[in-house]
Every structure is written in structure tokens, then in C-alpha cells.
């Protein structure tokens, strides 16, 4: 997947890096929306990271004639543009951005509607209201507690009245997120954590009002608000994590909706969206374009990268009449294809459906916190009921005391610590992994990764670098290598890049010309030379003595170099394993994990790679559906597997696995699907991701343990009527702080 990889890299911002990787500019015309004589466009920008990026992009945009508004949101990576109708050619916008080194993707206007983060704002508003009310009510409550004995009943009643006036409306407003979720759960005839929370809030408010009306000493207005305040913090942290994951996924989906160049009957090119293509349409594919639908080549001859289908990294030549699957990347020269299927029936769409199916099965995963809640809710509610019945039957204190004590049990056991336990740990763990270059998509991804017992790897681009590297450099003289590199440096073909990578920077042959689909010819050190396809190189050489060594394992790809007066030299290429692949796999095995290799590539290549990295269990020639089938079989046997893969053909298996990881160089859809995306040249981040998720799990369980311990101490106190509002407040804030501090320990290495 090398050709995609270079453009998706998230490392470093282009403003700090000299010459940017060329990336084909997309045509966002179909995504422009018109309103009130203005045109608007929103683009996702990849790679913008600092103040220099902001000012560079915004200045360049405002520099385009006609643009009246340009603002880049660095948190979401969205660039909003406005211009007078017809004043700007949208293509110019993306070309300018590509010139600056930033890749842009346009959003489908339909997906934009859900863009505003209304839920997050509602949570923040609730948090603000709860905080305001809590501060003021505390002021009054502390006075009441401190003035016990000295404060007259009248003043106390006044304070309770003011507290009630603040607390009741504010608490009812701030608790809306919990009420909504609780009613939804009850309607579905189940109970989640929000049911006891809502119940505790409502009961503590009502009992406080009752107490106040009857001149009682204790009210729990502050307890209700404190509960809401802490829980809203946890809820907001959780929401932020999910939102980040969702945005990342949507940006990557936007990348896939790149527009397509359709050739009309009179030879005019028009940009359309992939889903508007009809069967029989003629589509122009320039080098760097992906086929948007399945079709047949009508004109042209070119090398294509088919790794999306079979994971094979070597480029393949295709000619007129051959079939092209959607997602195949055109590498060298322009092709004209005729659509045979519409986008919805094409291979990529099928892969997308497989991904969705996998994600649905993943959403059935029950988070630790919810599992704890399922255990916790019935216990607490029966304890409260028991308290109520106990006081009513065993003591003559009366109904009022029984109700107050039952409610006290509910309030004091309310899952303050439980609500914070998981989100706080997950935020800290995510932050720590982010510093090491590992992006975590969701909180439960951490939980799932900590449970796996088998790591399944893809080959191309995951265990290997995914590009063509020179395999027989030791057999080629340094002089020949340098000469070949002089030609190879002018080409962007994967094989040419493989030569340049092994030789490094140096001279470029001045009159080198790239002949499409053949290779590069030019004058090297005073003599004509050619580097490229065998037949083409041998046209000029009358030397036929060059031979294949029968003992050699067939390389993934080959090229020949010939210079006048010498016999042609064979260059062999293969896909080299990543530097730390062997070591990482060894460590995984040492830790007792199973390791398996699933690849779509040819048998002998997969076998060789499996031997090199030390994986005993491997399969080759697998289609995307075979990979998911294997994972599902494993899951049926009770084996929880983590899939590591990068190709688009891995996306369905990434979705189907219990947890999934993807390198930052992976195909967009795979990055969108994977739970973790790691940066860097190696696969060792897998070890760290797993280690941190294991630690995070331990912290979450510790926190739950602490919450349980706290309840064991607090419940008897509450049940026997010893809990005053002061004790409730101390216990609740104390337990919340212990849980948060325990989570913070994870930030230390």
C-alpha cells in the first residue's frame, strides 16, 4: 500500500518539512453548497499541526481571488471556506493546498448535518450549571454544618429555602443527560448506570424538600449536585474520546468520496462523485488515481497496484480488455476504463459492507463499566429496600426515618466513583499512548486489546515495509548500482524508488527520459543506458548471455539495467520485513500470545516471510472474506484475536477482530476501521499499546475494587442512620478523588 501511504502520513506538518510529497489534488466541485449568492465548501485538511500551518493555509486561501472567508479549525482539521457564487474554481483551492503540501478531502454534504457536536455542548452546559449551583449551595450547606448548635432554626430554614431554590431547577436541568439515557434504558426493559443515578438525584431532591418543609435538620441538596458534577465530568471525558474517534473515522470516509473524471461522449472531462457513475460510463484514470468502480480497460497500458485485492505489493501491468477492480491504484500512465458496475456493487462497496458487519458485532461488546453496573444496580437497590423494610419493622422510628435512611443508602452508594473509574483511566491511558505516537479510537478499544490472546498479522505493509526494496544489492557492483540510480531517480515507479532508497541521493542522468510502461533510458557516464522491463532493455543489448539463476527464489519483481558495452544486470526486488518485526514477534511469543500470518500474497512469498519473522502458522492467497472467516472461526472457538493490518483488503478483518491495530501508513479505510493507529517505521508500538491497555484494565479494576470497598464501609453507616449530609459529601468527593488519582498513576512510565 505504499502509494497511499506516503500521502496519509500524520507525522510532522508540511510547514516544517521541505518539499512536500506530491499528492493528486482532488476536485471538490460536487461538494460545494450554494446559499444566498455564496458558495461554501468544507474540507478536511490532513497534516496541519501548528500556528504556521494555520496562517499559511488561511493566507493562501484568502490570497485566492474571490474568497471572503477562510478559517481552519485545528482541533477537527476542518477548513471552512466561503466565496461569492462563481468567483472561485473549487479545483484551484485543492491545488493550492496540495502545492503547500497539505492533503485535502471534501465532505459529502449529507454527512455534514450531523457535524455540530450538540451532545458535547449539552454536557458542558449541564456541567456549567451543576458547577454554579454546587458552589452556591455548598456555601450555604457549609454554613449550616459549621453553625450547628448556634444557628437558629429560622436562619437554617432560610438557608435550606435558598438552597432548594437553586438546587432543584439546576439539578433537574443538569441531570437531563442521565434522565434521557435512563428512560431510554427502562423503555428497552434494561437498567444501565444512569438508572440508579437518576433515582438518587430525584430521591435526594424530594427527601430534601420533604425535610425542609417539615423543619428537618438535614437536607441533601449539595449531595445531589455534587453527584451530578462529578458524573458529568466523567461523562464529558468519555464523550470527548468517542467524538475524536468518530471525527477521525469520518474524515477518512470523506477521503474515499473523492470525485472521478468522467469522459462525456464529445470527449469532455467532467468531475462527478463515484456514486453517480452509471454502467457504461467512460472514466479517465490518471497516474495516482484509484478506479472508482469495477470495469474494463478500454484504452491505455499501465502498471497498477492491486494490493487492495490480494495484498501483493509488486506492481502489475494491465492492458486493454483487462478487468480493473475498484480501489486498484493506477501507477504509471493514463487509462480509460468503462464502468461495468455502479459504485454500490463494486468491490470497495462490498468491502465497506463487510466492515460495517464487523463493526456491528464489535458494538455488542459490553464495556467493563456496564458489566459492573449490571452487577451493582440490583445489589444496591435491594440494600436500600432492605434498609427501608428493616427500619419499618424492627424499629419504632416511623416511616419518615425509614425513608430517609433508605434514600441515604441510595445516595451514598451512588456510582460516583464507578462513573469516573473507567473514563478517567481511559483518558490518561489514551494521552500516554498518544505521546508515543499511538492513536486510540475509543475507550473500550483499550479494554478489548487487553483481553486478546492471539495476534494476527497481515504481511504486506504490516510485517513488511510494503514497498519494493532491492534484494540482491550485494551481487551488484557499486558502480552499476550508482549508474542505475542515475536513471531511476527521475521516476516515481515503485521499483525505481526501491533502487534510489538503497543507493541514496546522488547524480541524475541529464537526458534521462521515462518511457511509459518500459523504464528509463538516458546517457550514463557517457554511454547510452536503459533501466526497466526485461524485454525493453534486451531490445538494445545483443548480449543474450544474461541468465536466471535457477536456484534463486523468484523475486516479487525484477528490473534490468544495461549500459552500452556491458551485459545486462538483473535487479531483484522484494518486500523487506520491518526492522523490529522479528524481535517484536519473538516478544509476543515470549509473553505467551499466539501469532498468525494471514496474507493474500503468493504462497512461496508468504512462506519465506513467515520463516524470516518466525511465524509458524500462516496462510496465503486469502481473499478479504477468507480472512474474516478465519477470524470468525477463531472467535467461535473462544479465541480473542487482535488483527494487525494495513491494506484496504484487511479492513473487513480489522472490523471483525476483537481488537485491531493499523500502521499510520495504512489505507484510509483501514485506519478508519482499526481501534489503534500507530506511527513509526516498526511494529513494536503494538507491544506498548498492549502493555498500556493491560495496565489501564488493571487500574479500572482497582478503581472498581475501591468503589466496592468504599461501599462496604459506607452502606452499613447509611443503613443504620449514621450518615449526615456532611459525611455523604466527604465520602463522595473523597472516593472520586481517590479514583482519579489512581488513574493518574498510569501517566507515569
Amino acid at each position, binding site marked *: 500500500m505504499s502509494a497511499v501511504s506516503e500521502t496519509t502520513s500524520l507525522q510532522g506538518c508540511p510547514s516544517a518539512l521541505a518539499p512536500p510529497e506530491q499528492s493528486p489534488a482532488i476536485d471538490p466541485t460536487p461538494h460545494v453548497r450554494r446559499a444566498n449568492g455564496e458558495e461554501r465548501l468544507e474540507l478536511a485538511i490532513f497534516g496541519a499541526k501548528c*500556528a504556521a500551518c494555520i*496562517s499559511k493555509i488561511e493566507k493562501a486561501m484568502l490570497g485566492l481571488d474571490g474568497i471572503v472567508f477562510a478559517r481552519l479549525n485545528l*482541533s477537527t482539521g476542518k477548513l471552512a471556506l466561503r466565496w461569492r457564487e462563481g468567483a472561485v474554481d473549487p479545483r484551484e483551492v485543492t491545488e493550492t493546498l496540495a502545492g503547500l503540501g497539505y492533503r485535502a478531502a471534501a465532505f459529502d454534504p449529507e454527512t455534514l448535518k450531523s457535524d455540530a457536536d450538540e451532545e458535547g455542548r449539552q454536557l458542558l452546559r449541564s456541567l*456549567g450549571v451543576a458547577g454554579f449551583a454546587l458552589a452556591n449551595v455548598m456555601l450555604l450547606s457549609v454554613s449550616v454544618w459549621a453553625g450547628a448548635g448556634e444557628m437558629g432554626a429560622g*436562619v437554617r430554614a432560610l438557608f435550606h429555602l435558598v438552597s432548594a431554590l437553586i438546587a432543584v431547577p439546576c439539578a433537574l436541568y443538569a441531570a437531563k443527560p442521565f434522565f434521557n439515557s435512563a428512560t431510554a434504558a427502562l423503555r428497552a426493559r434494561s437498567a444501565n448506570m444512569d438508572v440508579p443515578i437518576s433515582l438518587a438525584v430525584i430521591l435526594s431532591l424530594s427527601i430534601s424538600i420533604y425535610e425542609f418543609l417539615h423543619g428537618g435538620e438535614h437536607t441533601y441538596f449539595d449531595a445531589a449536585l455534587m453527584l451530578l458534577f462529578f458524573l458529568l465530568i466523567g461523562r464529558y471525558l468519555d464523550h470527548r474520546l468517542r467524538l475524536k474517534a468518530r471525527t477521525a473515522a469520518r474524515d477518512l470516509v470523506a477521503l474515499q468520496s473523492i470525485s472521478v473524471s468522467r469522459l462525456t461522449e464529445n470527449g469532455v472531462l467532467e468531475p462527478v462523485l463515484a456514486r453517480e457513475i452509471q454502467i457504461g460510463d467512460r472514466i479517465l484514470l490518471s497516474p495516482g488515481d484509484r478506479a472508482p468502480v469495477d470495469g474494463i480497460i478500454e484504452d491505455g497500458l499501465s502498471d497498477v497496484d492491486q494490493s487492495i485485492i490480494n495484498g501483493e505489493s509488486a506492481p502489475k501491468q494491465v492492458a486493454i480488455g483487462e478487468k480493473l477492480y475498484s480501489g486498484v491504484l493506477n501507477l504509471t500512465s493514463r487509462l480509460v476504463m468503462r464502468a461495468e458496475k455502479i459504485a454500490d456493487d463494486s468491490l470497495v462497496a462490498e468491502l465497506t459492507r463487510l466492515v460495517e458487519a464487523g463493526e456491528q458485532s464489535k458494538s455488542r461488546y459490553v464495556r467493563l463499566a456496564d458489566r459492573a453496573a449490571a452487577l451493582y444496580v440490583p445489589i444496591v437497590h435491594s440494600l436500600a429496600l432492605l434498609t427501608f423494610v428493616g427500619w419499618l419493622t424492627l424499629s419504632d422510628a416511623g416511616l419518615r426515618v425509614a425513608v430517609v435512611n433508605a434514600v441515604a443508602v441510595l445516595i451514598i452508594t451512588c456510582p460516583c466513583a464507578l462513573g469516573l473509574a473507567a473514563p478517567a483511566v481511559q483518558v490518561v491511558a489514551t494521552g500516554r499512548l498518544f505521546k508515543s505516537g499511538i492513536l486510540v479510537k475509543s475507550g473500550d478499544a483499550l479494554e478489548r486489546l487487553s483481553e486478546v490472546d492471539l495476534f494476527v498479522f497481515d504481511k504486506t505493509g504490516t510485517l513488511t515495509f510494503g514497498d519494493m526494496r532491492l534484494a540482491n544489492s550485494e551481487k551488484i557492483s557499486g558502480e552499476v548500482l550508482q549508474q542505475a540510480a542515475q536513471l531511476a531517480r527521475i521516476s516515481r515507479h515503485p521499483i525505481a524508488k526501491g533502487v534510489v532508497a538503497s543507493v541514496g541521493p546522488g547524480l541524475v542522468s541529464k537526458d534521462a527520459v521515462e518511457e511509459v510502461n518500459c523504464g528509463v533510458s538516458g546517457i550514463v557516464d557517457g554511454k547510452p543506458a536503459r533501466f526497466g522491463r526485461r524485454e525493453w532493455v534486451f531490445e538494445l543489448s545483443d548480449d543474450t548471455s544474461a541468465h536466471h539463476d535457477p536456484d534463486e527464489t523468484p523475486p516479487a519483481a525484477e528490473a534490468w539495467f544495461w549500459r552500452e558495452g556491458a551485459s545486462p544486470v538483473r535487479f531483484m526486488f522484494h518486500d523487506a520485513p520491518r526492522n523490529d518485526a522479528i524481535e517484536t514477534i519473538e516478544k509476543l511469543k515470549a509473553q505467551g500470545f499466539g501469532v498468525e500470518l494471514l496474507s493474500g500474497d503468493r504462497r512461496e512469498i508468504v512462506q519465506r516471510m513467515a520463516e524470516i519473522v518466525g511465524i509458524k502458522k500462516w496462510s496465503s492467497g486469502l481473499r478479504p472474506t477468507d480472512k474474516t472467516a478465519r477470524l470468525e472461526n477463531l472467535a467461535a472457538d473462544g479465541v480473542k484475536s487482535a488483527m494487525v493490518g494495513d491494506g484496504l483488503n484487511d479492513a473487513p478483518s480489522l472490523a471483525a477482530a476483537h481488537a485491531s491495530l493499523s500502521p499510520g501508513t495504512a489505507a484510509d479505510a483501514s485506519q478508519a476501521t482499526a481501534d489503534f493507529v500507530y506511527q513509526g517505521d516498526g511494529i513494536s508500538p503494538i507491544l506498548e499499546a498492549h502493555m498500556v491497555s493491560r495496565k489501564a484494565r488493571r487500574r479500572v479494576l482497582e478503581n472498581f475494587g475501591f468503589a466496592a470497598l468504599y461501599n462496604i464501609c459506607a452502606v452499613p453507616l447509611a443503613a443504620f442512620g449514621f450518615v449526615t449530609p456532611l459525611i455523604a459529601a466527604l465520602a463522595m468527593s473523597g472516593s472520586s478523588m481517590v479514583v482519579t488519582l489512581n488513574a493518574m498513576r498510569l501517566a507515569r512510565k
Partner: protein
Amino acid sequence: MSALLFLIPIALLLGGVGLAAFVFALNSGQYEDLDGAAQRVLMDDDLEGDE
């Protein structure tokens, strides 16, 4: 004790002002791009334009 009659309203008023400011900031989109805001203070190209 009569001090309470104006101290409590003052406390509430101050808290209310804080809350109103927060809601205003939220609704005017100031929480939309926290990373961008942190970076934008470093941009000094507005100075060059004035001189």
C-alpha cells in the same frame, strides 16, 4: 444576620455572571477549536501589517 439579605443575592449574582459568561463562550463557539486557539496566539503576522 441582616447582612445575609444582601450577601446571598451578591453571591448568587456573581455565580450567575460566571455561568452566563461560560454559556456565552460556549454558544459563540469558543470551545470549538481549543488547539487552534492555543496556536493562534503565536501568530504575529498582524503586527507586520500595521507597521
